[in-house]
């Protein structure tokens, strides 16, 4: 199956600063593909290059087998975009927002378009607010409307830049279920996120990016298998003495120490758990390794601003 987006040695620099440093990737059709990375990793720059809105410094980039920048306009006609910050038109109602956006795609104002607007508002569970102004909507509602707006041109590829950042858990779950529906309909989704849970739930395949480079690529399960031990024991609220006791008594386990928490990564947690259960006053959790463990291992634990 041919790739819907294909990048070779893609690079973008601003003066001396390299935002994207020679990356290669192929985004398969009909899948949800994720770019996972800390702030400043180059995710948004990559999306903007795919949309033809950021001229790249070197390399090749094609979408729908059309080259950028020569065919940027034609490419954008087949893409739906959900930007990081909502940019709905505050002068318009919900329905007018969708109608005007259709006009920017060159779609004709007719009965078919009105039906499409109605069905998109229904998809976004916003039918009742059809004639309200967008500034009266909650954050979650604005996001849903932005997603509906991204579908107005019936796109083959939907690009979402941190689709659930800043939303409450209820709103986030609604968005996830809508995105799953879209993927089940055969749309290709491309999203950036720094929420591991989001990446694990939605993405069939993802790349982990940092400092403008791709560190690894695969399905969430493959990445976990490749980079971390399958089980994790997490201990919280440890003083120095406890840390030393544990370090001296637990073997065959990779230990990471951050603040007053300890993480033990292990192939078989049996012996360690037995030891820990006999220690008084220790609280610990035992869980399977997750994408977050992979992410922190690859990108480090230091703070990003």
């Amino acid at each position, binding site marked *: 199956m041919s790739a819907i987006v294909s990048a070779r040695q893609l690079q973008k620099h*601003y003066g001396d600063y390299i935002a994207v440093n020679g990356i290669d990737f192929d985004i398969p059709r009909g899948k949800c593909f994720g770019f996972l990375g800390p702030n400043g990793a180059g995710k948004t720059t990559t999306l903007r290059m795919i949309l033809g809105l950021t001229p790249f410094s070197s390399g090749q980039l094609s979408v729908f087998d059309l080259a950028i920048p020569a065919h940027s306009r034609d490419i954008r006609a087949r893409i739906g975009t959900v*930007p990081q910050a909502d*940019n*709905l038109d505050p*002068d318009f109602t919900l329905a007018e927002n969708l109608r005007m956006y259709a006009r*920017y795609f*060159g779609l004709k104002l007719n009965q078919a378009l009105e039906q499409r607007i109605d069905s998109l508002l229904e998809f976004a569970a916003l039918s009742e607010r059809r004639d309200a102004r967008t500034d009266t909507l909650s954050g979650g509602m604005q996001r849903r409307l932005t997603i509906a707006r991204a579908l107005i041109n019936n796109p083959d590829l939907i690009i979402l830049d941190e689709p659930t950042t800043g939303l409450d858990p209820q709103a986030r779950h609604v968005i996830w279920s809508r995105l799953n529906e879209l993927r089940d309909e055969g749309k290709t989704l491309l999203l950036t996120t720094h929420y591991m849970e989001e990446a694990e739930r939605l993405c069939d395949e993802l790349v982990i990016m940092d400092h403008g480079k791709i560190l690894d690529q695969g399905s969430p399960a493959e990445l976990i298998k490749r980079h971390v031990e399958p089980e994790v024991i997490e201990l919280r609220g440890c003083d120095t003495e406890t840390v030393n006791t544990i370090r001296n008594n637990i073997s065959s386990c990779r230990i990471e120490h951050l603040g007053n928490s300890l993480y033990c990564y292990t192939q078989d947690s049996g012996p360690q758990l037995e030891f820990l259960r006999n220690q008084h006053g220790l609280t610990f959790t035992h869980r399977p390794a997750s994408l977050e463990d992979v992410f922190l291992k690859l990108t480090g634990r230091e703070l990003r601003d």
Partner: protein
Amino acid sequence: MNHWQLPRIRRNALAIWQRNVLVWKRLLGPALVLNFGEPTLYLLGLGFGLGTFIGDMGDMPYIAFLASGIVASSAMTTASFEGMYSVFTRMVPQRTYEAIMATPTDIDDILAGEMLWCATKAVISATAILIVALLLGVVHGWQAILVIPVVFLIGLCFAGPAIVMSSLASNYDFFNYYFVLIITPMFIVSGVFYPVATLPELMQGFVQLLPLPHAVALTRPLVTGQEVTQPLLHIGVLCLYTVISYYIAVVMVRKKLLI
């Protein structure tokens, strides 16, 4: 992509124009009060008040002189306001362009649509003045209707430079420079309030390089029923300002937004 590449305008530009019409219709009341109220006050106050002392200017009553000049200058200020405050609002704080640029409508189309809209607003405000002038009895003959397309061109020619200012601005206060250093002086020296011929000769030559005197040279005879002299020169200057400022605006906005 090369920022200096020549722009290509598509039909999508009309969608931008349509967007602005829709917003304007929503705020029709206050917009029309401004369009009719201001020129009425100007013409009554200055035209009759000052006109009593001045009597005739050139070979017409002062109020006719003033009205036929203000048609042009109001097109200038209307288009400049729209090209600065409104365009900047959509370009920066409101992020409307960011949303539009994710569609096949690109900067070339957006700015062409904005300029068409600025010119449309110039026509609306000039029409209001023309109606007031008509009621005051200073409009002579049907040829005055030709002022409408002329005012549209005046609107285009001032919209471009205003959008260039929007691309340079980091906040609204920046526009004070353009108004105080360029628009207001031009308003004063371009023959709106008194004939350019009364200026010192050196000044007259310089003033001919500005677009507003050419605009006035077209609107005054059309409104007051006189013959237009050198129409092609005046139209040519306005067209030149339109085309060059549009191109500069497109390049500047590309540099600002396509990063």
